[in-house]
């Protein structure tokens, strides 16, 4: 066996390389920067990198290739997730246009790009090593990003994230080791061996592996870090985490459930995941009820939203995967949009956009922002005319079709609870002024506004033109 890689192998990871290079470019550019305002330059270079990576990745779509002897699969499923990661990255980068430590954001932008590389690696990873690498690359960057602002809560969030996340990673790693022990291979494809179904080693390995994934997906009871970290981290990082981390983890989870399980064990093996997803849908939504901080609210919301997405995979049907991807994409836009609005009404410090009280009377002061925020909140609560509505009904349909009625019921119950929490924000924005004014009128921030606008349009357009990648299932493997 000769270990030699062809050009095709390198091409497969080209988008990741481009993104990593873009990170370097940002740093280099910053080296040459004077004292002037270089915030935009960093962002623009980062965005360019994202754009190029997206184009390159997009060109791979439909050209399936198992690079590095099956370690990194590209061309289909991976491409879709890479694109979602890139969307998330771009949306988060845009938020640095208002928020960040001083004029220099190059460091954080670079780390974010590299962190995104990890998520992209996860999207295509088809062996345990690649998965672990991607996961750690993503996480290490995030630890740093969380702390990259001079604020006590940010540091606290970084510490919490660090300890808890690495503990969970340890579980994943231990599970991976057990899986390796069960098969003698790190390739996910080797897990398909039917004889594994009766191997306790495999079951335990899969279980611990799933613990790590479920933590990254922040399903209850592995969610405890989410609200604190989301609240403490700087706004762009929160946005990044809410989308990119979840996308990466979901990619691994989907590949694991769809392409790496021996026949016939799926229902039993994944049952705990469905259970925690159901609990997440309830707890996440209940947790939103009495929040006063937007980021924290969205953290709980994210817990529930990921529950919806995971539920779509129950039953392991191709349609389920398609709808999970659809909803994930929609969710990316809703969340990024909401964070963009938060950024647009914040100063350099993100405190203001985080406080829910600063949304009071927003409709008077910034009607367009309020309208956009309304769309995002409607989407998060699953109301028309937004992609959240369609996504939810698609997931409901596929869940019912797969026979997981109790999951559908939990979804409905969770949604019912969440309506109140989202509507409270809407109400605050539109209620006639009740004495107390909200914050000051922040200047117009083109990038954040543009991001909000694009997200709003996307969220609505996706309802009427539901683009879901077809034939996704063959591409997972």
């Amino acid at each position, binding site marked *: 066996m000769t270990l030699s890689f062809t050009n095709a192998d390198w091409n497969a990871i080209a988008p990741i390389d481009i993104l990593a290079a873009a990170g370097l470019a940002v740093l280099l550019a910053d080296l040459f920067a004077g004292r002037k305002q270089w915030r935009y330059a960093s962002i623009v270079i980062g965005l360019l990198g994202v754009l190029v990576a997206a184009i390159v990745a997009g060109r791979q779509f439909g050209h399936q290739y198992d690079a590095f002897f099956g370690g990194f699969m590209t061309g289909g499923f991976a491409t879709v997730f890479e694109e979602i990661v890139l969307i998330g990255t771009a949306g988060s980068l845009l938020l640095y246009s208002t928020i960040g430590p001083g004029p220099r954001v190059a460091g954080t932008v670079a780390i974010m790009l590299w962190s995104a590389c990890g998520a992209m690696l996860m999207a295509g990873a088809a062996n*345990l*090593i690649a998965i*672990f*690498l991607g996961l*750690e690359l993503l996480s*290490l960057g995030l*630890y*740093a990003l969380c*702390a990259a602002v001079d604020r*006590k*809560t940010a*540091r*606290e*969030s*970084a*510490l*919490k994230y*660090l*300890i808890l996340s*690495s*503990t969970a990673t*340890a*579980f994943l*790693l*231990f599970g*991976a*080791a*057990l899986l*390796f*022990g069960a098969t*003698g*291979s*790190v390739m996910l494809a080797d897990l398909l061996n039917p004889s594994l179904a009766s191997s306790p080693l495999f079951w335990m390995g899969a279980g611990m592996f799933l613990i790590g994934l479920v933590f990254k997906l922040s399903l209850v009871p592995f969610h405890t870090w989410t*609200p*604190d970290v989301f*609240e*403490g981290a700087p706004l762009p990082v929160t946005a990044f985490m809410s989308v990119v981390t979840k996308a990466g983890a979901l990619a691994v989870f989907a590949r694991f459930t769809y392409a790496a399980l021996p026949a016939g064990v799926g229902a039993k093996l994944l049952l705990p995941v469905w259970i925690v997803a159901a609990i997440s849908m309830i707890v996440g939504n209940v947790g939103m009820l009495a*929040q006063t901080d937007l980021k*924290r609210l969205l953290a709980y919301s994210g817990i529930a939203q990921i529950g919806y997405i995971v539920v779509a995979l129950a039953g392991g049907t191709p349609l389920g995967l398609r709808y999970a991807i659809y909803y994930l994409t929609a969710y990316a836009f809703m969340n990024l949009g909401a964070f963009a609005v938060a950024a647009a009404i914040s100063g350099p410090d993100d405190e203001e956009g985080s406080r829910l009280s600063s949304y009071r009377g927003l409709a008077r002061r910034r009607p367009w922002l309020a309208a956009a925020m309304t769309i995002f909140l409607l989407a998060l609560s699953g109301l028309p005319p937004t992609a959240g509505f369609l996504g939810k009904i698609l997931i409901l349909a596929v869940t019912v079709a797969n026979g997981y009625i109790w999951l559908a019921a939990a979804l409905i119950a969770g949604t019912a609870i969440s309506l109140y929490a989202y509507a409270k924000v809407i109400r605050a924005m539109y209620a006639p002024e009740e004495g107390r004014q909200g914050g000051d009128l922040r200047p117009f921030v083109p990038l954040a506004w543009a991001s909000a606008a694009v997200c709003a349009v996307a969220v609505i357009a996706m309802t009427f033109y539901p683009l879901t990648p077809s034939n996704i299932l063959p591409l997972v493997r």
Partner: protein
Amino acid sequence: MSVPIGDYVTLASVMFFIGVIGVIVRRNPLIMLMSVELMFNAANLLLIAYARLWLQNVGHIFAFIVITVAAAEAAIGLAIVVTTFRPEKYVDVDDIAALHG
């Protein structure tokens, strides 16, 4: 092969368990990080043992990668711990609870 694979698994599990307990009970973030490292190394031990069992050196490679990553993680972790506790007198995670609810 005098030591059966089961013993390795047991040892690794015990190490992992100790690490878990360490994360839960210790209040010093540094020790918590060390406990995490212990868990990582339990996995490493397992990887190496199985690599030997299956005669697959990919397990070794995995272990090396884990060691590298763990080093990076420790570096970042220490940095975070330092920045977090620089204003504090004692290093105690129980003092850090500004974010809650």
